[in-house]
């Protein structure tokens, strides 16, 4: 800690990082910023089209099923809540992995990474089920079987945006899982142990939390309001 005192006095003086972080983490943060603008642009476009439409389907009518649900029943918000909690919990295990990394606790890192990967896979499976289910109901890009909440004809943009944005998010989850698997392999091979620090796990963690963060917005915009 004694270094911090001298470090903070002349943080911006050059010769060191003004934020006390290595460049990789800084780049990851700014990459996530730019990715936030990608998702932001998608969601804002969705909002713009929704504001320009006279009607919009009621999400509770559309997303009201879960696997193995008895025929004819109606269970809005149930399945998506499960998905949300899966992603939150996988985020928690990721934090725990990063935390274990700081303590150089290899076993903790491995265990928590495995949980995170499983969470990611579970989320992807849920999404795959939901997409298939909607597809069976006749929904796809350019096809919208659902009516507006007031019973009028809906434009296809409801499903267009739903599949595009959740698809793009799912793609991020998928790549996050891949990254985490790579991290797991590297941890098992003692790469970080030899390197003396687990900072890579931290960067992978940032990406994973970002995926969770985006889901918070997607979940709200598509399923709740």
């Amino acid at each position, binding site marked *: *800690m004694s*270094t*911090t005192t001298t*470090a903070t006095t002349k943080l*911006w*003086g*050059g*010769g*060191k*990082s*003004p*934020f*006390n*972080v*290595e*460049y*990789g983490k*800084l*780049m990851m943060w*700014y*990459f996530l*910023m*730019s*990715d936030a*603008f*990608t*998702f*932001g*642009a*998608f969601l804002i*476009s969705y909002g*713009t*089209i929704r504001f*320009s*439409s006279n009607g919009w389907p009621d999400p509770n009518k559309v997303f009201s099923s879960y696997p193995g649900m008895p025929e004819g029943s109606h269970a809005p918000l149930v399945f998506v809540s499960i998905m949300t909690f899966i992603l939150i919990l996988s985020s928690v295990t990721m934090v725990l992995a990063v935390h274990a990394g*700081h303590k150089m606790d290899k076993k903790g890192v491995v265990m928590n990474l495995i949980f995170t990967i499983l969470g990611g896979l579970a989320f992807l499976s849920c999404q795959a089920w939901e997409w298939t289910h909607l597809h069976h109901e006749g929904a796809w*890009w*350019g*096809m919208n079987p659902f009516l507006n909440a007031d019973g009028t004809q809906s*434009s*296809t*943009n409801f499903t*267009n*945006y739903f599949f*595009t944005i959740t698809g*793009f998010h799912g793609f991020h989850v998928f790549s996050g899982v891949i990254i985490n698997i790579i991290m797991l392999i590297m941890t098992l091979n003692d790469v970080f142990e030899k390197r*003396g*620090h687990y*900072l890579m796990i*931290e960067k992978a963690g940032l990406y994973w939390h970002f995926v969770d963060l985006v889901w918070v917005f997607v979940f709200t915009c598509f399923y709740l309001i």
Partner: protein
Amino acid sequence: MSNEAVLHAHEAAVHQVHGDHHEHHHHETFITKYVFSMDHKMIAKQFLITGMVWAVLGGLMSVLFRIQLGYPDAHFPWLQDILGKWWVQDGRITPQAYYALVTTHGTVLVFFVLTAGLSGTFANFLIPLQVGARDMASPFMNMLSYWFFFTASLVMLSSMFVETGPFSGGWTAYPPLSALGDASPGSKTGMDLWLIAMALFVISSLLGGLNYIATVLNMRTKGMSMTRMPLTIWALFFTAVLGVLSFPVLFSGFILLIFDRNFGTSFYLSDIFVNGVGALPNEGGSAILYQHLFWFLGHPEVYIILLPAMGMVSEILSTNARKPIFGYMAMIGSLFAIAVLAFLVWAHHMFVTGLNPFLGSIFVLLTLLIAVPSAIKVFNWLTTIWRGNIRFTPGMLFAIGFVSLFISGGLTGIWLGNSALDIHLHDTYFVIAHFHIVMGVASMFGMFAGIYHWFPKMYGRYLNNTLAYIHFWVTIAGAYMIFWPMHYEGLAGMPRRYYDYSIWESFKQFADLNRFISTIAIIVFATQLLFLFNFFYSIFKGRKVTQQNPWNSNTLEWTTPIRPGHGNWPGEIPEVHRWAYDYGKDGRDFIPQTEPIGADESHH
């Protein structure tokens, strides 16, 4: 988080670069040195030369469509022999080819030349050298950035050779023309390739931009505080920030466009009837949404193009006027203000599209605010050279030319920023004149200034001065002769992107003027070839640089050897003790940044 771990990691990284450098001189093959190089200087040269190839192609396209505009009745059978039937028929540029040329000219010059060629070159070249770093934060990502750009170039180039021609719906690629393959031949394969090329380009600029930001923040040498950095670095830093935050929005817009083109969605489409196809089922989308998304990038993009030029010009003016830059902090402040405002004004490109007029009025206000930081910069440049001891090097001439063009083109921006005036001026030659002067030619001048000024550092040789002076005078005179008359045409209502004005009673009067413009354009283009000759000839045969610091400049790049190797400084990276603009201070011509502050030195 553990501070120690981070600090050690950072130190380790520094050592690695350091060690790299000492062990680097042996085993460098042709491939690792010139092709897949990770040296920021080589990557900069790769960006520069690729950009130059595109500049020639883009310039050539403008010559071709200026031939059509200047000589609508003439026949050039030899053009058909060179270009083939798709482009030229009966010795005349075909209408389809004309639109393809206009579109590709715009795309190529805006993105490939003035974004990749300008900030790709100079951010790569100058950031590590001027902040005192051995290389970029991540040399590998830097290399990827170039190769993504190169791939984008190849895809864009290949779109010129497809059967239905390259995309021809204008560089802004507005739907529905860009979304419907049935709408025009140019909207078929050419548009798909255009989108792929642009997506690759976005990735390239993102990889580059993240690297530039991380390098400027993290890799500054000891003593190089943010307020001691040369203005070039500040400008390139803000450029990178603009790119990182705005390109993703374009990317999203393109993804939606790809879905509209290929997967039957209606993000941008509603109520469309295509001749020969009939009514389309698409409903509920909005073409204006695309324009919003496009210009959310598009407006920052013009500052991505302009800011690097501004930064280099500030540096070159101060160095060659042998005076400190006037208002250093005000310069940084106005760069920051421009960077912020860049994100707030995009819809001023859309005043007549059906944008809500009240919203438009707010965009007018925000747009006109840009005049404030721009004026601050202009006055600071003028006061920097005011009563300076000016050395008219070619770089300096181009820098002064930049200021002149920025003023001339910027003033017409105030006209266009008003939504009421824009009803008359929108999509006329007035707009063409405005943005070509202020963004196109001005940034080209900034680029030329940078090339002439830093060529000795890049290649260890000088460019030929006589050719450079010819290049400058013809180009500045030509630029004004080409674009000044266009203001009058635009005020008279002459619309842009028309194939042949001679059939319009109202625009027949401009036939002579159009011929004049076209003739000058050809001359100016030929003069650029002179510059190219100068450039490539001087790389191999130019006068050798014998001094380490040929311009008596303060900045760090001139403390490196004349031909720096990978790692830039053979020994320790120098420490910085002062800002970059101590010219003509205490009776001394210049005091390099590396010199410690003397005991009895006056304050600036």
